[in-house]
């Protein structure tokens, strides 16, 4: 089976600092894939490379066998990769529903002219997107706060909204950047269920970054471990758990 996403020797340097060095892995369709590593290991930078925020200094990134190095982030999103942000980046002044509608704007078909004149194509498209957004909010248990300003949501819900918004782009591959950060154990359990639901019911491929080892080990089927930008381990959770290099990398932190 061919890989949905494959990194081949992806590397990026900022001046003298090599933030991500020669990282190679394949994600196959339907994978629930974990990307872990200590602080500053280059996980988020890796996401930024995949989603086109940064351009790799060298190496290649393929999405469904198409080279996506250096494409604009919105093009990459349109191809089917959506992401969430570690430091929540919602459209704060807009409502929850509006945030999700923007995620769906990609599939919006009415012209700008019809929007400016408020003609039927724009009106029907807008209400279609709103309906779709509401459906997604139902799934992610956010329907009751649809009209709330996203900045006013509690932290856990903001994280969920990030996922809803990314889902609204109808991606094939979903990148989640520390989705469980700052959540309590109950919320984490809910989130784990949601992530599984997204994979099983919506058939998405998921790549997630997470600090909470228990969370990652619990839901991911394959894991890549980064340390100081280098890939130090790659395999199923059981293998990762016993990998001496991983234990060494984490020793300072997780004792």
């Amino acid at each position: 089976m061919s890989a949905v996403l494959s990194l081949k020797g992806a590397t990026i340097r900022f001046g003298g600092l090599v933030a991500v060095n020669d990282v190679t892995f394949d994600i196959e369709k339907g994978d629930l894939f974990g990307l872990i590593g200590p602080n500053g290991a280059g996980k988020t930078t890796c996401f930024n490379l995949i989603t086109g925020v940064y351009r790799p200094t060298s190496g290649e990134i393929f999405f469904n066998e198409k080279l996506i190095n250096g494409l604009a982030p919105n093009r990459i999103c349109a191809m089917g990769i959506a992401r969430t942000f570690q430091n929540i980046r919602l459209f704060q002044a807009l409502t929850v529903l509006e945030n999700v509608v923007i995620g769906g704007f990609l599939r919006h078909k009415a012209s700008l002219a019809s929007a400016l004149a408020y003609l039927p194509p724009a009106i029907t498209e807008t209400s279609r997107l709103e309906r779709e957004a509401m459906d997604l909010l139902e799934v992610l248990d956010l329907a009751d706060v649809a009209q709330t300003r996203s900045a006013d949501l509690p932290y856990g819900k903001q994280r969920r909204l990030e996922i809803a918004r990314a889902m609204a782009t109808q991606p094939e591959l979903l990148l989640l950047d520390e989705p469980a950060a700052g959540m309590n154990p109950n919320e984490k359990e809910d989130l784990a269920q949601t992530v599984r639901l997204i994979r099983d019911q919506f058939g998405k491929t998921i790549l997630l970054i997470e600090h909470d080892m228990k969370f990652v080990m619990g839901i991911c089927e394959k894991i890549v471990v980064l340390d100081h930008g280098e890939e130090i381990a790659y395999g199923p959770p059981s293998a990762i758990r016993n990998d001496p290099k991983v234990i060494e990398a984490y020793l300072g932190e997780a004792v």
Partner: protein
Amino acid sequence: MNWGVRAVSIVAAVGFCFLIQTVSLGFGADIQRLIALAGLYVTLAVSLNLINGITGQFSIGHAAFYMIGAYTTGYLSIQFLKNSGMPGPVWLLLMMLAGAIMASLAGLVVGLPSLRLKGDYLAIVTLGFGEIVRIIVVNSPFDVSFFGVFKFFTFPNLGGAYALDKIPAIRELWLIWLLAVVCIAVCRNLLKTAHGLAFLSVREDEVASLAMGVNVTRIKVTAFMIGSAFAGAAGALLAHYETSILPSTFAMDVSFIILTMVVLGGTGSITGSALAAITLFALPEVLRRNKEPVTGGTFLAIVIGVIAAVVLIRWFQNEYHGSKNKKTAGYFASVAASAIVAFGLTFALNAIPALHDKAFEGSKLRMVIFAGSLIIVMLIRPEGVFAHHEFSWTWLKKVLRIKPKSEALAT
């Protein structure tokens, strides 16, 4: 969509424009001119709001697009109107289109740097662009050549530093206000659709918009092009209303004034921009008309009163931890107390001969009041008077319903 409501609104809007025209005919030429200029400022403020408030691209050179529209169409009319044999209003419509196209091309040029620049850097580029446009007009005519060797063409004479005058007069007040209404309608329509949300998303967070597949580039450039097209059309109307235009009509201050309108109205709020445009345009004109000089004592008393009000209101905002109603009551009390103090001081200070004899003409105070109100609003309500609210019937109902309740609680 309810087509009936829509038809009624359109008829009402056009009717409103003709009503303004009819009413203004009852006044003298100078009042008519003010009504015309007020309409143009509404267009300018609302169109800048599209760029600044809705799309979040900080542009402070809006007068440049206004200028481009005015000069392009003024020049075209001087050259071609006589031979065209077209009736005035038709020609004027054509000119509005021409002004809009030229200005939106300029908007494209300014919009492109906005792809790489953010915030205050973009602001300074738009400011610079405005100055370049003004310098080009002031220096006209000139030869465009390659180091003096190959002459490409001669840039036409636009009056240089003096006026471009003898522009044929076509004064259609209703058209001026119709442009304002159309501008408001277009912005409102945009905000009602998913397209509008995409514009807002660029303002809120560019990185996140990109990650959601929004073509940020296209949206920024589009916002600049639409916004400047309206300013260009307004320029065309101005040129044919005034028949004589000067580079200084479009100086940096004008951009700042338009910006002030947007900011005071509440960045992003169409209602706010439109109302602020009318208020801020009318206020200095009223002052200008007031021939009676303001004495130094009165001026000083007002300044002290305003400062006192700002200080008190800020205290209630930041230091006072009462209920919301008590805070509101505090604001009103601050304003009332400061007004009384200022009123009392007027007499006290005017008793001092030096202050009484120093007089300021109302017309000289207008920009001072402008600048002062800009700072005051920033200090006590940085989100602008209307903040992000829009006028709508439901909003009005909400405000009216809440108010009596809060008053009952306060007393």
